[in-house]
């Protein structure tokens, strides 16, 4: 074999595997679609706004989970937002490098703690706290439910959002900041007037990516959300998210149509996180163009 042929072969091997990566993603989408066909045929678009999820009577509508997912994720994002931004600013602008380096490493390490452990912690430490509040406020004292799930999600995405904010702020050119200092600006004025505007779209992209994480987070949520497949009617309700209902019911689904409905929920989740990630990517691309 000539040397060039071997090189060509290697090229095709690498290229073939790279193509495989694309096919893998397409395959995942198609498999989910194929797996949910029975459910799609039976319920059509009604699946999206059906409020009843009743495996016994074989009626499936995913709205309760869509709502549960959106409420917990957005709430988590709102709770996290001020803390994440502040942490990012603190690490990038205020903390001396000797502290900032180890501190952000530490935060990233904590971000690596498995989600099931966040769930365990929430179950035994967060739930009592939430219950205490609920009793004070006259809400049903489940301790579990939407508020607890949102809180644990907020804690989980915080390190991620903070480290992206920090990285984006680090990319602000030193000259720009020095120019502002040269004009007599205070540190806060420099941050407010130069750094944050410059980094804004990067920070937004980071938040969108964090939202994507929250949307698909499964275990911690499953452990504290209460697993109730009905439309939530109040903020204190027990609920289910798209991910948690799959985690809960998938192995128990004895009927094909139930399994197909769960797979369709998975398909929805796949599509939604895909869209969210594309959105984040677009923001990042705009950032690069700027």
């Amino acid at each position, binding site marked *: 074999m000539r040397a060039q042929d071997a090189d060509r072969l290697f090229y095709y091997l690498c290229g073939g595997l790279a193509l495989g990566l694309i096919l893998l993603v397409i395959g995942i989408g198609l498999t989910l679609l194929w797996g949910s066909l029975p459910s799609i045929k039976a319920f059509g678009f009604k699946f999206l706004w059906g409020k009843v999820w009743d495996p016994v009577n074989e009626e499936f509508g995913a709205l309760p989970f869509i709502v549960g997912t959106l409420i917990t994720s957005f709430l988590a994002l709102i709770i*996290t937002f001020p803390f994440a931004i502040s942490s990012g600013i603190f690490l990038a602008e205020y903390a001396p490098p000797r502290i900032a380096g180890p501190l952000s490493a530490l935060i990233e390490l904590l971000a690596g703690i498995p989600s*099931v452990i966040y769930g365990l912690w929430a179950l035994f430490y967060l739930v009592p706290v939430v219950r205490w509040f609920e009793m004070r406020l006259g809400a049903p004292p489940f301790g579990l439910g939407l508020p607890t799930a949102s809180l644990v999600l907020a804690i989980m995405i915080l390190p991620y959002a903070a480290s992206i904010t920090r990285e984006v702020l680090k990319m602000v050119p030193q000259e720009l900041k020095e120019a502002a200092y040269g004009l007599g600006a205070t540190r806060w004025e420099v941050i407010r007037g130069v750094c944050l505007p410059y980094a804004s779209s990067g920070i937004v992209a980071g938040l969108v990516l964090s939202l994507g994480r929250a949307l698909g987070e499964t275990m911690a949520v499953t452990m504290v959300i209460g697993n109730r497949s009905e439309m939530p009617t109040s903020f204190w309700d027990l609920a289910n998210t798209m991910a948690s209902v799959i985690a809960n019911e998938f192995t128990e689904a004895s009927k094909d149509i139930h399994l197909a409905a769960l797979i369709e929920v998975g398909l929805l989740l796949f599509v939604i996180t895909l869209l969210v990630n594309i959105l984040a990517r677009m923001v990042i691309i705009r950032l690069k163009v700027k």
Partner: protein
Amino acid sequence: MNRLLYRKLKDRLAFFLILVLALCPTLPLFHILLGVVKQGISSISLEFFIHLPKPPGEEGGGVGNAIVGTLMLALSASLLAVPIGILCGVYLSEYAKGRFGEAVRIAADVLQGTPSIVFGIIAYLWVVKPMGHFSAFSGSVALAIMMLPVIVRSTEEILRMIPETLREASLALGVNYWRTVLKVIIPTGLVGITTGILLSLARIMGETAPLLFTAFGNPFWNFNPMQPVEALPLVVFKYAISPYEEWIRQAWGASLVLTGLVLVLNLSARLLARRMGGHGR
């Protein structure tokens, strides 16, 4: 003058607000770590590491089978993902210039952003259903898919940083391209690639969702990849939501072991990355 005072005051105020807001969230994070250590340490004993679990209600027993299972899953997922991931990374850094490369990168990003439970469904449909039963292998397929994007992107990034002249030095010796890649480029980037692999391992070691309906769990010893297998995160989940006190205690113990594993992986990745940075290739 007043104006200056006002501005300075605002500056101070902003600083304190940011400081407080920045430090607040570290409290729950540290509390989790401390909680795991405090609650978990009481379970840790030799028995805990090498024994099978006892039936509910009985004292003692361990998570030996889950530790073995987790290692088995990680190993087989790596066997699947590492070679494929590295070669894809090589493709992206060495060959891909145009649209196709961009599509591959997007595919990796999509995989990175997809919730892990989706990979559980996929491995269920691709492996469990055709095989007819749960298995460690199906779990490692799900985990391998999750490792891929991390390995692909980190390999690409590392290889891009390798100076062109090294490649040319090898080619100028009459070494053909694939040998240059395998014997010069990859070894030069090996530290960075290893970092990526360790990070991807840390990512999947603690994953529960993709194992729920693939590896499934197994209260006995199992070394056969075609059979269901226990895993540490599955144990934590099952025990945590169980009504038995002894099990809940062991859930904390398993959490401590799992956290230790993940932190060690993350830390070694970080130390490696620092070593690489220090040497300044």
